[in-house]
């Protein structure tokens, strides 16, 4: 009889562990797989933003230089598509700036498409005055905010 006790004990403990493991196994199966991480957007060197005059979507000379650099970068990095965001300064009305922002993004896109970049690799979006880069209420801030921003996907 004395020898039975340790034997029973040695049987009971593994059986409990086994049962417990079964219960746990059920829960593990139910748990959903972790969601895939959101795509990371990186602004790589070489891809730069271009800037505009007030109420204008026409390209300035400095913008054209930058757009040539951007076109070369996009051609060299064929695995990346690019989003061109149109932005405006806070002046004027937000509805008007939404329209103007799209024109800025489009003028930048059209230029680099003319340089040979495939249109399918470019997407445009206008944020109007909704996402300013600089918070000030002066020409320095406004000049920063009138831009087409290039974001590599």
């Amino acid at each position, binding site marked *: 009889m004395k020898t039975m006790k340790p034997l029973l004990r040695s049987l009971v403990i593994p059986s409990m562990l086994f049962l417990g493991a079964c219960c746990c196994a059920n829960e593990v199966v139910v748990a959903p797989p972790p969601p895939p991480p959101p795509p990371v957007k990186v602004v790589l060197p070489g891809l730069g933003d271009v800037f505009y005059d007030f109420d204008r979507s026409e390209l300035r000379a400095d913008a054209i230089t930058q757009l040539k650099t951007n076109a070369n970068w996009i051609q060299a990095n064929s695995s990346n598509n690019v989003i061109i965001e149109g932005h405006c300064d806070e002046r004027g*009305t937000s509805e008007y700036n*939404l329209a103007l922002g*799209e024109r800025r993004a489009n003028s930048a896109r059209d230029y680099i498409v003319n340089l040979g970049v495939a249109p399918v690799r470019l997407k445009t979006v206008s944020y109007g005055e909704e996402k300013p880069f600089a918070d000030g209420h002066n020409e320095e801030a406004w000049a920063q905010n009138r831009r087409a921003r290039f974001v590599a996907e």
Partner: protein
Amino acid sequence: MIQFFRHVVPGTVVVLFFLFFFPLHLTAVEAGEYIAIRKEGSGNIALVLDRLGADGKKESRFAQGIDTVMHDGLDFTGLFSLISPPLNVKDNSDGKHVAINFGALTSVGAEVYAGGVVTMKSNLFNLNMEVYEASGSKLLFKKTYTGKEGELRSIGHAFCADLVELLTGKRSVFGSKIVFVSNKTGCKEIYECDFDGQELEQLTNSRSISMNPTLSPDGRHLAYIDFTSGRSTLYIRNLAERKIAAVAKSGVSIDPGWRSNSEVAATLSFDGSQGIYLIKTDGSISRRITNSKSIDISPTFSPDGSKMAFVSSRNGLPQIFVEDLQSGEVKRLTFSGRYNTQPSWSPIGDKIAYTTWEKSGEINIFVINADGTGLVQLTQKCGENKSPCWSPDGEMIVFTSNRQGKEKMYVMNSKGGKERLLLQGDGEQTQPSWSLFR
């Protein structure tokens, strides 16, 4: 005989009209003549709104609440000069029943007297209202309003609405709503409040950017712009059925404006160039209505839907233009001011409100007739005043101003007077739009 018809027939029509629309409670109405008298006069209606009579604790408390609601409501309209009731307005000198002392009313300059009694029956309150012409001591209107304790505002405003319609012949602001954008949560979301800034409710929770809300004339649909999809997209939400239609699969969507209950217009660019389109409430496109190479935005329609005012940069900086939708003819409306945007066509007439961004940096609200005459400046020397939108009766304009720092909603009358803050609260309030429905 002719005399007979001249006096009796219009009165009969009015009585039949009121009996048809208010069949249960109305007992005496002779409103037609009074409206005629008011139209000739100008200025506010001198009104004595008497304290409501009530027996019992609950009745008295309810009466006090209704008193406040009606007083605030009528004051809000800006149509009335509210005169305190003279002490001897009630006359019971014969010791039997209380009569209205019309002599006392006319001596304080009252044109109209409104008074009433609150009674209670099986947990329902009855508000019995009577309206008299002060000079002729004639009963103009008598009606009973019934409701629960929590319906103070709707009961009080129902009387206010009837009174305004009785005295002006026009529908009133009571029951109308204002939708607007606020960033108080850190994101621009759409909210709704009553015409007087009360009963605030949050309508979107997209945690993105929501903009330019506008209710269809019947109040069944809300059109607005939202960035949840990653770009500005026009959504049309059926408020009762909680269905949402998204419009256009690509490009930008800007600033919707309703043409009718079934059609909204907005700037879209899905086909490669920006233009104003008419869109059905299910989100399908009816047709394109502007075809310039410039920016065309912010459509707003004449009450019959035949004409559209909008903003265009076709001549350089943005100006307001008017398009005849039948002929397609477009005429420039504004020639004064270098940057004119945000037109709003009055729902009752041919006036258009808009904003001018002035050289001084101020943004001011102007009103102009649809034919280009009668330009009037409504705001000045108080910062940036934006997004004017008419009340459903065309008597008031809601707009935003940063005159006290943050951008908040204000209302003023259609001449630019009686400017006041509409709604306190955190954050900035922008892009208000006043509904037509009630």
